[in-house]
């Protein structure tokens, strides 16, 4: 079984790399062959040159750093908030009953629409961007934790109770560890959503971050710059996602390997 898994990994990786090469080739020569002008789709080499130019002249590293810092801050704070509220509500059916309509309403409301409001409140600083990210990360994390707490096998709780477990012992020994796999599923979603929140905040107002470069490039009709910003945003999001996966692999090491793979 291990051998077949191994060969699957080799075949899969080969195919992935092949797809990447096909994609990059198509990007480089496709637009020219199809007579698509460079201001619609600039070829790969033009985007690469633009990236080098931006790195040297436009402070690409600085803007990427700002965005990454906002994403990280928003993601961590949003996750902490979402998880804490999820645990609190999960343990109090009354609180859940009372709060559920508001939670639902806030969940339905498009969080990115709050971005202009936050900028009005806090100006062109990094804080409104972090706040949008917090808001957007909050929900998937909270909902996953809440569901996890509610679906813990009551027989497990009874088992602990039969051993005379106190409420805190039931939480720390059963409910909390049982909630970790869904929590991490929420964190995975949250890590990618944090980027969305930050970018929207930066697009709406400010003079720093990849979102700012995005709208600056748009204003200059510099399509290559827009592409560079998109690629960098994807990298930032990918790194955040990878970070979650790495922590998850450590924390949930007891799960069968199959359950940990996949996205």
């Amino acid at each position, binding site marked *: 079984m291990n051998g077949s898994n191994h060969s699957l990994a080799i075949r899969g990786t080969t195919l992935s790399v092949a797809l990447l090469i096909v994609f990059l080739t198509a990007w480089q020569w496709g637009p020219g062959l199809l007579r698509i002008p460079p201001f619609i789709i600039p070829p790969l080499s033009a985007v690469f040159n633009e990236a080098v130019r931006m790195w040297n002249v436009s402070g690409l590293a600085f803007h990427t750093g700002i965005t990454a810092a906002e994403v990280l801050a928003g993601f961590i704070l949003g996750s902490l908030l979402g998880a804490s509220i999820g645990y609190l509500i999960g343990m109090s059916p009354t609180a859940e009953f009372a709060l559920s309509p508001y939670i639902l309403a806030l969940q339905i409301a498009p969080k990115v629409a709050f971005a202009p409001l936050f900028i009005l409140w806090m100006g062109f600083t990094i804080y409104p961007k972090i706040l949008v990210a917090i808001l957007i990360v909050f929900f998937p994390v909270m909902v996953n934790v809440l569901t996890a707490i509610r679906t813990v096998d009551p027989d497990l709780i009874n*088992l602990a109770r039969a051993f005379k477990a106190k409420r805190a012992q039931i939480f720390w020994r059963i409910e909390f*560890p049982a909630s970790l796999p869904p929590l991490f599923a929420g964190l995975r979603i949250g890590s990618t959503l944090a980027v969305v929140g930050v970018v929207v905040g930066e697009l709406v107002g400010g003079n720093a971050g990849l979102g700012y470069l995005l709208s600056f490039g748009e204003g200059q009709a510099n399509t290559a710059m827009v592409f560079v910003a998109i690629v960098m945003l994807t990298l930032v999001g990918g790194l955040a996602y990878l970070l979650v996966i790495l922590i998850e692999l450590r924390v949930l090491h007891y799960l069968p390997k199959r359950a940990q793979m996949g996205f």
Partner: protein
Amino acid sequence: MPDLIRLEYRNVTMRFTQGASRLTAVEGVSIAVRDGEVVSLIGPSGCGKSTLLNIGSGLTAPSEGEAFVDGERVEGPNEHVAFMLQKDLLLPWRTVAENVMFGVEIQGVPAAERRRRAKSLLETLKLAEFSGHYPHQLSGGMRQRVALARTLAVDPTVLLLDEPFSAVDAQTRMVLQRELAQTLQRAGKTALLITHDLLEAVTLSDRVLVMSRRPGRIIDEIPIEIPGRDDPLKRRLHPKVAGYVNRLMERLDIGHLETTGAPV
């Protein structure tokens, strides 16, 4: 003290209210299990057997009557009783040894003593080499052995067993039954075993109690007069077994309509 009563139900009645309808699960049940005795409780699905287990372990209070363990009235969960269900209830994030120590850990037994007990139980139940494994790496029968070890680790005087082997395959079940029987015998534990398996009831017990359909009452008591309670594999070959099983089938009305296959 051979006649010491370890577990006793005195005139226990349990009613549940579900919306407008009231349901009597068990009615006027009195059971007394002596020290070291293994008693099986058998009856149709939904006759309230598991309700009795919950009352005995102090998880639910009866509507009427009372339960006693070691002469003390059961007011809530207590150290004298431990239960084991059809589900192994192993915690997937704990290793086998850590799962065995779960109960003693909650009860605040010192770490060294916890490890000592886990080690000796894992050795007795032939699980020593798996103590560092996680539950998902074990077979169903092994998981159930771990659950048994966890139940025994808290050193209860009374074990309440609710169809502990009904989810494992027939051959594994026979092996587990023998291990349970030997363990109970060696440790001198008292046990109330709830089962659907007539042969399991006869081969493992000193006495079999038969419950009626809902509302559950005790309708028969059959002492099993076959020697060698610690070896159910040998015991099941005894010529008297067929007679007991036959009597149980009659008492449970098996072969007539609606007695089997009802959902739990």
